């Protein structure tokens, strides 16, 4: 999960909870405000009626017919209901249905339900010489609810937009403050396995810096390990090659001595075995050299394939002569960017492979050129070829075609494939022209 997402997922529910709590508080406050306002209005109405009736002392003069008229029409649908009660308790005027509210305060308030309507009732007690006259006024609470709704919906709308705004600002803030981290990621991702130099710490946010420091330390260790591996390969090459060279040269010397005349066959077997060991050691070292970690950028350069073919053909000519194979080339000028040393190993392995599998009297041809903008390097022979079913497996390390002659290491094509891969090239195994033999082509994309 990304930091941005985690941050937003943590903050947005909290914001929502805050919004709900805010709305509840708003509701309570609005409720109190609306009740206070409506109570005030009721109290005002009650006081106004006192004024109208000429104060507490005039109450008793209200005519009886008026009383009756009012009493007979208990119109609970009216906007404002009232009831005026004499000190003795009998109704002077207004609705008989209204309860009289008693309480510590004057006026006193209460909610009541009359004829299925919710009302807010206020009773004002007016003292006079003849006692206390009570004036009760009531108004439907529906007005109050309406006012409350209007007030609340406004509040909620504002809160909602606030939440949206805060979320958007948060997202923008997170996006921009994490930009250096994303850039860092892209920078690291675009590196190849060989680029082990430090990651710059300057542009990185403080929170990520410890991570970068740790990664840089790791890169340093990797560089040290890589250097150690390079040295090991070089040392191993030296340590193995020199004694092997000594053994082989001594054996050859022995073979040429008259005393060894009776042991030619045994010594020849010994020599072939030693040559096999030397070849295998060599191939393993080449394999190690061709590991992506071992391919150093400073060794890359423009490699002329034409000259390389000349050198490799020259190196293999004696062996081809010995095997009675016609080794030749058909090369056009072509260049690739790569490690000259590894590419020479690649071609050498292709040629070596072709010479191994081609019978006496056969032909091996090395080609290079540029076909439709793609530089290629290929070796074709007119030997038995590689069956289509084996064309994937022969690239595996230590795999050898069933019935293979000689004592190969089974690493040749694995090396070719590995070197091709580190050069961004493909190895294609096909049947040779004329439906015979094998054509192994390396295409540099």
């Amino acid at each position, binding site marked *: 999960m990304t930091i941005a997402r985690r941050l937003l997922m943590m903050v947005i529910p909290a914001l929502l909870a805050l919004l709900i709590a805010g709305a509840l508080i708003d509701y309570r406050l609005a409720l109190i405000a609306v009740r206070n306002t409506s109570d005030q209005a009721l109290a005002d109405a009650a006081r106004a009626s006192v004024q109208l009736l000429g104060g507490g002392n005039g109450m008793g003069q209200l005519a009886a017919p008026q009383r009756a008229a009012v009493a007979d029409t208990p119109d609970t649908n009216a906007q404002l209901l009232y009831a005026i009660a004499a000190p003795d308790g009998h109704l002077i005027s207004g609705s008989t249905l209204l309860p009289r509210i008693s309480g510590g305060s004057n006026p006193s308030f209460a909610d009541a339900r009359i004829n299925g309507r919710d009302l807010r009732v206020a009773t004002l007690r007016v003292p006079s010489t003849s006692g206390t006259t009570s004036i009760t006024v009531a108004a439907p609470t529906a007005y109050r609810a309406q006012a409350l709704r209007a007030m609340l919906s406004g509040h909620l709308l504002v809160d909602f937009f606030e939440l949206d705004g805060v979320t958007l600002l948060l997202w923008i803030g997170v996006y921009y403050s994490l930009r250096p981290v994303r850039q860092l990621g892209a920078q690291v991702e675009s590196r190849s396995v060989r680029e082990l130099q430090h990651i710059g710490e300057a542009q990185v946010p403080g929170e990520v810096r410890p991570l970068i420091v740790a990664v840089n330390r790791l890169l340093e260790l990797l560089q040290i390990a890589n250097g150690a591996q390079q040295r090991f390969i070089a040392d191993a*090459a030296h340590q193995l090659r*020199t004694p092997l060279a000594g053994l082989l*040269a001594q054996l*050859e010397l022995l073979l040429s001595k008259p005393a060894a005349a009776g042991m030619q066959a045994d010594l020849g077997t010994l020599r072939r075995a030693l040559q096999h060991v030397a070849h295998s050691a060599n191939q393993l070292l080449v394999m190690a050299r061709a590991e992506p970690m071992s391919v150093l950028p400073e060794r890359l350069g423009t490699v002329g394939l034409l000259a390389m073919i*000349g050198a490799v*053909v*020259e190196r293999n000519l004696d062996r081809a002569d010995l095997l009675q194979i016609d080794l030749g*080339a*058909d090369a056009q000028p072509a260049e690739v960017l790569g490690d000259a*040393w590894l590419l020479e190993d690649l071609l050498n392995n292709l040629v070596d492979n072709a010479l191994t599998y081609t019978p006496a009297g056969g032909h091996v041809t090395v080609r290079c050129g540029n076909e439709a903008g793609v530089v290629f390097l290929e070796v074709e022979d007119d030997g038995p070829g590689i069956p289509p079913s084996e064309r994937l497996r022969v690239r595996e390390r230590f795999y050898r075609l069933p019935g293979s002659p000689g004592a190969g290491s089974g690493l040749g094509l694995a090396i070719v494939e590995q070197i091709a891969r580190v050069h961004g090239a493909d190895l294609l195994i096909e049947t040779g022209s004329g439906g015979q033999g094998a054509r192994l082509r390396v295409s540099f994309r």
Partner: protein
Amino acid sequence: MRLLVVEDNEVVADAIVGGLQLAGYTVDHAGSAELARNVLAVEHFDLAIVDIGLPGADGLSLVREVRAAGNGMPILVLTARYELQERIRAFDVGADDYVTKPFEQAELAARCRALIRRASVVPTGLLRMGRVAIDLLGRQLLIDERPVELTKREWLILESLAHQLGRIVPKDRLLQALAGWEAELTANAVETHVSRLRAKLGDAALIRTIRGVGYRLDETREEPAG
């Protein structure tokens, strides 16, 4: 012919010395660059085989010293390190050729022979191989000590091949050598001149065609070095 082998590994050194002695050379051995330096100061050698990985001062610094002292004898470098840079450095300090360990005795002897032959041309201008002698100063081909008439183009081809005795000379290099003489020259023209030259050499020397690569003047192997 006297050769010096500078190699610290006794088994390798012993085999090289033995092999080259069988090939007819007089061979001395030095186990370190310091010993080699002392021997080279007082003795003359026709060729030195120098291992790069010597203890103490390494082979490359020995080659550099030899060249700095004005000694032009051919030097063949032995290397166990399979490094292109190592080979390039060997040539840079003045080595003439290199052989990678492990090597075949026959290959080492052939390289030595070719190097000595090429070096022997320098003072006299005469390259001798079996019945053939190529007089590079007098611009003349002798077979059995008798001069053979060559056209200018045939001579230019022979000269190019003789300078690279035993090594492949790419076809386009021969084409360049002839370019001064013929404005409109094709690869076919090179083939024509080579086949005429072959006819004149007969069986005294071999110009080998390496299909699609070039030509090589092969030395005859019957004559041992003395």
